[in-house]
């Protein structure tokens, strides 16, 4: 910090703002007038009219919505045509008598006892319905959790 009187400071202190020219004032006036005319005028009831540009935006939004609708509709129409890569069972699976395949059941066509035995076998091979051990997600629902139902 310098406490001595600086000549530059004295020079700057002597400077005074110059009055704006008449030409500048006229240009500013014209510009202000032009901007005011672009601002929406108040209607008789006090509301402002919406500029035309906004209507174009709204129209574009409607057009976009229609495009979305057409896309959804066409997408639905086309769904059955899409061939998903489905896995087919290997042919040998048909001969696995642990599985309830058409081939396995053919052997039981002749005898009701054989059919009953096969149905018993496949019923036993099915996972037990009560076995709800869960390895992912939020775990199995227990009676305690059920008791909270309706608590809200």
């Amino acid at each position: 910090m310098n406490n001595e009187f600086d000549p530059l400071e004295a020079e700057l202190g002597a400077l005074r703002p110059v009055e704006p020219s008449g030409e500048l004032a006229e240009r500013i006036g014209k510009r202000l007038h032009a901007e005011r005319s672009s601002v929406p005028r108040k209607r008789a009831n006090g509301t402002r009219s919406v500029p035309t540009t906004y209507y174009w935006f709204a129209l574009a939004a409607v057009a976009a919505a229609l495009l979305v609708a057409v896309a959804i509709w066409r997408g639905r129409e086309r769904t059955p045509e899409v061939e998903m890569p489905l896995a087919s069972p290997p042919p040998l699976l048909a001969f696995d008598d642990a599985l309830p395949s058409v081939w396995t059941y053919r052997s039981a066509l002749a005898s009701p006892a054989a059919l009953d035995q096969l149905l018993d076998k496949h019923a036993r091979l099915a996972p037990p319905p009560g076995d709800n051990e869960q390895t992912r997600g939020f775990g199995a629902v227990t009676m305690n959790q059920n008791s909270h139902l309706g608590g809200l």
Partner: protein
Amino acid sequence: MSRLIFAALVPICLLLSPLAQAQIPDSDPHTAGNAALQYWQAFALMPTLDKEQEELVGKWTTVSLDDPQVMKLVENSRTSLMFLHRGAAMANCEWGLKYDDGMGMLMPHMSRARDLARLAALRGRYEFERGNWKVGRNDAQAIVTLGRHVGREPVLIARLVGLLIEDLAIDLTAPYLLEHKAPYPQAMAMFEALPPAATLSQTILVEKKYMCQWAIDTLKKEEKGKAGAGLELWKKFIDGAKDADALAKMDKFDEILKRMEEVVPVYDELAGIAALPKPEFDARYPKFREQAKGANPVVGLLLPAIDQVLAKDHRHKARFALLFAAIAVAQDGPAKLKEIKDPYGDGPFEYKALDKGFELKSKLLFEGQPVTLVAGAGKKE
């Protein structure tokens, strides 16, 4: 600016609103859905049976209903049976079978459907014994409908399991006919309103398209993928077959394929014969089968034993006819039989009074014995 956002959102919301509404489930009990989805919920909620309980369910016609194990089983089946009834209230049933899998097509619902029907029969008997006729009758009706829904798939084994399930309803209802006196017209109307099962001719044509043709295509595909693999697969087909020795002599892949392709038109002929009235079928089928097998050993391997399926079909029809006749007798007495014709004879069913209830006999023979029905022997005093 808020007007702009509003103007843009309104059409989008209007367009999306039907999609949002489609996600809200209908709270009304609808009957237009897929019954199979209800049945699968019933299967999932069936009680897990240990060996002893399995035996109890298997012997549902004779087990003591005072046995605490049986009572527990009936109690534990209630939720599952609720879904059985929901499914039975629906006309449509799509099991979602993948016919393109041919003989490898899996039908895991069949064993479950049979077990569910047995549980329903046990509960039905339990209710009949307590005089809850309406609950018991509803169980019987749900069992028959489940049987029809299983048998609607045009696959021979599905048809047989369907018949087996429907037979449970006959076994459940017949012993209690004298007590609950189901009105004959109402019972007939219920039967006639049941969803139709696939016809035998339909199942034969499905066998041709999806089973025989699948076997041919699969053998070709295997052989194309690796030389000799088709022949290896063929050995799987003939493993355990009746004419395995004769079939094993065919060891050239091209010959096997040619023989298999020759079987395809035989299915059409078989479908025609299966549609004939019983006397004509009985007269024509043995000769047809003998000739077809004599000309081509692969016929015996691929063509299903239609005569055995048809015999079970006729027995089932006769049993239902006997049941309705028994309902009429329980309501109006044996004299009513004069108005009801045995579909497998020239006159009415034979009637025999028993110490408890009565027996009706059809002229139809199954495995050498006349098909009979004992009615009114059930309720304990």
